[in-house]
């Protein structure tokens, strides 16, 4: 599964992995803005940014081909819009859509696969994003696997009782069966959430997570963020001047 691979990648010890999450988030934002606001010489800029990201992937010790392929997740969606733009007589925009969406997804993927998600969310928390929302997101990620597994068990059980056999049941009754399954999943998730809540209260939860080991933003992190951002901005300026 997608996120299992990400979990494995993000536990590395390379020079990129060891940077503070806030430094990586700042660099990611600069990258995304530099790319999103570019209009001239987009192909050359994209090649330069691709080289930048590839260097980061290699420095992080991740499989380059694997990362490049995984970022391709966005391509089917962008390809549809690129095709529509092309048909409408705007081939320049079609190319821009594909390049920009792919490179943005790749940049996010590089940031996420060199930072464990809890650390990334703690980094976000310190930048002033609503803490409540981030805690909900963290819980969501934690129970994603648990609830998804439960849903898979339920679909398997339903299939083994003949739910997919078209001849046995009409479309209407299969629809109602699926709705019933979802309702059961909802009730079970709700019950599980209440159990978790009680267990957390019993262990002294008072409304916020306590973490072991604080993040510290060192000089090397500041250097990394500053140098990488400067490199990105200068690359863009140089390419636009040349064009």
């Amino acid at each position: 599964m997608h996120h299992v691979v990400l979990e494995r990648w993000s536990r590395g010890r390379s020079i990129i992995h060891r940077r503070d999450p806030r430094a990586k988030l700042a660099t990611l934002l600069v990258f995304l803005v530099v790319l999103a606001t570019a209009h001239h010489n987009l192909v050359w800029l994209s090649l330069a940014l691709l080289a930048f990201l590839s260097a980061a992937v290699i420095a992080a010790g991740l499989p380059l081909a694997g990362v490049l392929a995984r970022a391709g997740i966005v391509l089917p969606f962008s390809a549809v819009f690129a095709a529509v733009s092309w048909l409408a007589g705007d081939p320049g925009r079609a190319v821009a859509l594909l390049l920009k969406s792919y490179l943005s997804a790749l940049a996010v993927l590089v940031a996420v696969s060199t930072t464990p998600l809890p650390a990334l969310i703690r980094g976000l928390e310190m930048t002033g994003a609503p803490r409540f929302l981030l805690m909900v997101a963290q819980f969501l990620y934690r129970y994603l696997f648990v609830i998804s597994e439960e849903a898979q068990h339920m679909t398997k059980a339903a299939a083994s009782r003949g739910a997919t056999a078209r001849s046995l049941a009409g479309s209407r009754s299969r629809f109602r069966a699926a709705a019933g399954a979802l309702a059961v999943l909802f009730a079970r998730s709700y019950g599980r959430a209440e159990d978790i809540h009680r267990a957390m209260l019993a262990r002294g939860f008072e409304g916020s997570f306590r973490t072991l080991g604080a993040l510290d933003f060192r000089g090397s992190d500041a250097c990394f963020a500053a140098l990488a951002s400067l490199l990105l901005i200068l690359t863009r300026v140089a390419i636009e001047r040349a064009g």
Partner: protein
Amino acid sequence: MHIPDGFLATPVWATLDAAALPATGLIVRRAQREFEEARIPLLGVMGAFVFAAQMINFPVGIGTSGHLVGGALLAFTLGPAAASVVMAAILTIQALVFQDGGILALGPNVVNMAIAGVMAGYLPFYLWGGGRWRKLSIFAGGTLSVLVSAILALAELLISGVKMPGAVLGVSLALFVVSGLLEGGITLAVIQALESIQPGFIRKPAAGRSFALGAVSVGAVLLAAVGVLFASAAPDGIERLGRETGIAAHARTLLATPLSGYQVTFLHSTFLHSSWAGKAGAGLAGLALIYIACLAIGRAVARHRSV
């Protein structure tokens, strides 16, 4: 429909990000008031439920199947503010972990799906959920939530300059309507199944609101969505309409003073030299004016009714 990065023009994503930040803060505060902080696990686990729910397929006629989107269902069970928070958390995790939707486009996606979608989905239930029209209101809520967020996303793409031939636009609108109706059907079926398991899950809206008031507000939401779409597909259409019908002559004198031609002139002359910043500022100022006007009318109507 998750918009990836690179699709929206800079003024569009920047404006919507700027709008999404305080809106999310407000909704989070509201959800915190309804759910004390210690119930965070519930919201997180329900977010995971929405993810998992997409694995359960609903048969739709000829060999195809659809799945739940979930905004309206969450609003009917957890309340609109908490549902918005859960949807925003889902969008954040999707953007970070699954590369489904962009980071710069997170603001637009949150506005479309977590805020506008959930609000539009909750509206019919809020108005008629307690009375005779309960089933219909649940169905309409599911339909509206998907329809409004899809239309907003499409409008944002069109404003950003993504060109679409008329036929493509028609087909995608038809698809939106179909997926909206499907969401309505699934939401209604799941709510009915839930009620037979454990009726306490579904919120109870106040009964006995006037049908006319409700119809007007739902109609306003639909009109606004369709209007946004047409305005973005043909930005000059409204001005042409005005010229042809002769409204323009009157409208100009009325409207030109504060926001002439969507440009805030006094701001423009001082520090907002780029034209898009002026336009975005004028647009936001216009929205704020409309919002304040609606608020004032709402207050006046409420006072009138209570006397």
